[in-house]
């Protein structure tokens, strides 16, 4: 029986929300942790889809949904204002027919001696120190030229939002496919790692400048929430996404000092006090940190996608703090047979489904078509859709 889009949307959204709220769903939600894989699967140029014709995004998602029985797609992946970057003439990313990539390490944009400036005034530090350092075109521009560039950036950013608004509601309304991600907030130490000090820099800073790093991160934390909250729609079933990059490079003792306090405060303020639902991408192996995650507040609507580790043990140890997402190794989708994929799905259902608290997905994001053979991806999601019912 083919359901109408509205009924389909409600059924899928309820499945997701039931798990987030600690209820047993009708069956295990099958989450599409899929980004530019779907455009390659559809034979669509990512660059054209992101920059020229939003209809290409819609058709790619439609083909994905028609062939792969996912319950939710975390997003369309069109998250970078590429035209704005193109007009500035520089930037970190390049968009091709296959996808978007970081050009390479952008090095250390700031020096550790500047943490106190970041703590003092993150707005002016970013604007007056980092932006001219990063962008030659801005550094060499006159004041009036800068004003003109930033006015254009405002309009480009508005156009970028309008471009996505032309397609995202259609995906939910016409296809009945929920897209649960309602925005993203980086935890401050990850901002420092990814954009300010790079890996080598922050690895030294957590030893030599830990107090300054933490103080600067609290200033960034306040700025992030001040940006998000005033215009954020009220909390609903959708989740705010945070990729957690830094933790697994830190010894647990260091994680406890420079990172965990931000996780705790963020979950407390956003989820417990304000009622937002949160989504943490727990990158790499979190097994050494599971005991420390018990310090997270109880009662949050929080889901963690675990990229590695023993998910059964993770669920046992931190299932009282968060919903667990993941399970299907992309290596199996890339190299395995359909039978092996289905056997893995069966194992995951038997191990992780009892009691609820688990959403199925791939352990890593499917970015390139080579990340997972289409027949294996289809087989995996189909197996979950057919065999993970709680009450049938």
């Amino acid at each position, binding site marked *: 029986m083919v359901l109408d889009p509205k009924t389909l949307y409600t059924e899928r959204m309820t499945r997701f929300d039931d798990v987030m709220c600690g209820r047993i769903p009708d069956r295990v939600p099958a989450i599409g942790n899929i980004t530019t894989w779907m455009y390659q699967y559809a034979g669509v140029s990512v660059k054209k889809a992101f920059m020229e014709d939003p209809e290409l995004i819609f058709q790619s998602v439609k083909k994905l949904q028609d062939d792969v029985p996912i319950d939710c797609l975390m997003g369309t992946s069109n998250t970078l204002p590429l035209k704005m970057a193109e007009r*500035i003439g520089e*930037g970190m990313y390049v968009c091709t027919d296959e996808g978007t990539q970081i050009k390479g390490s952008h090095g250390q944009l700031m020096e550790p001696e*500047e943490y106190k400036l970041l703590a003092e005034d993150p707005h002016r530090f970013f*604007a007056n120190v980092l932006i001219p350092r990063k962008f030659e075109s801005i550094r060499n521009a006159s*004041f009036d030229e800068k004003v003109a560039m*930033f006015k254009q*950036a405002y309009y480009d950013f508005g156009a970028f939002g309008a471009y996505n608004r032309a397609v995202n509601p259609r995906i939910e309304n016409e296809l009945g496919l929920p897209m649960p991600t309602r925005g993203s907030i980086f935890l401050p130490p990850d*901002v420092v790692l990814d954009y300010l000090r790079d890996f080598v820099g922050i690895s030294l800073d957590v030893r030599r400048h830990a107090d300054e790093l933490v103080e600067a991160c609290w200033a960034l934390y306040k700025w992030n929430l001040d*940006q998000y909250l005033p215009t954020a729609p009220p909390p609903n079933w959708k989740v705010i996404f945070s990729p957690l990059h830094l933790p697994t490079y830190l010894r647990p003792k260091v994680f406890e000092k420079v990172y965990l306090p931000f996780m705790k405060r963020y979950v407390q303020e956003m989820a417990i006090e304000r009622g937002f639902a949160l989504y943490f991408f727990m990158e790499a192996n979190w097994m050494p940190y599971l005991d420390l995650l018990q310090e997270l507040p109880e009662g949050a609507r929080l889901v963690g996608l675990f990229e590695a580790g023993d998910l059964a043990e993770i669920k046992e140890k931190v299932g009282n703090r968060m919903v667990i997402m993941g399970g299907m190794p992309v290596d199996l989708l890339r190299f395995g047979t359909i039978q092996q994929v289905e056997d893995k799905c069966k194992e995951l259902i038997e191990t992780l489904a009892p009691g609820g608290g688990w959403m199925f997905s791939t352990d890593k994001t499917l970015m390139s078509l080579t990340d997972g053979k289409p027949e294996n991806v289809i087989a995996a999601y189909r197996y979950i859709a057919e065999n993970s019912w709680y009450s049938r």
Partner: protein
Amino acid sequence: MAEFATSNDGDVYDAFMKAAEEVAAEKELPVEQVAAVMDKLIYMFVTRI
């Protein structure tokens, strides 16, 4: 030793805020609303492009 900034002085922040005033006037929007978007752009110039 690498050079580092010793203050947050500069004109880029002011240029963003001047841009906000001009956009607000052009589009007949509250300046605070446009300035809030410019503040997001300051963050995004470092983290998203």
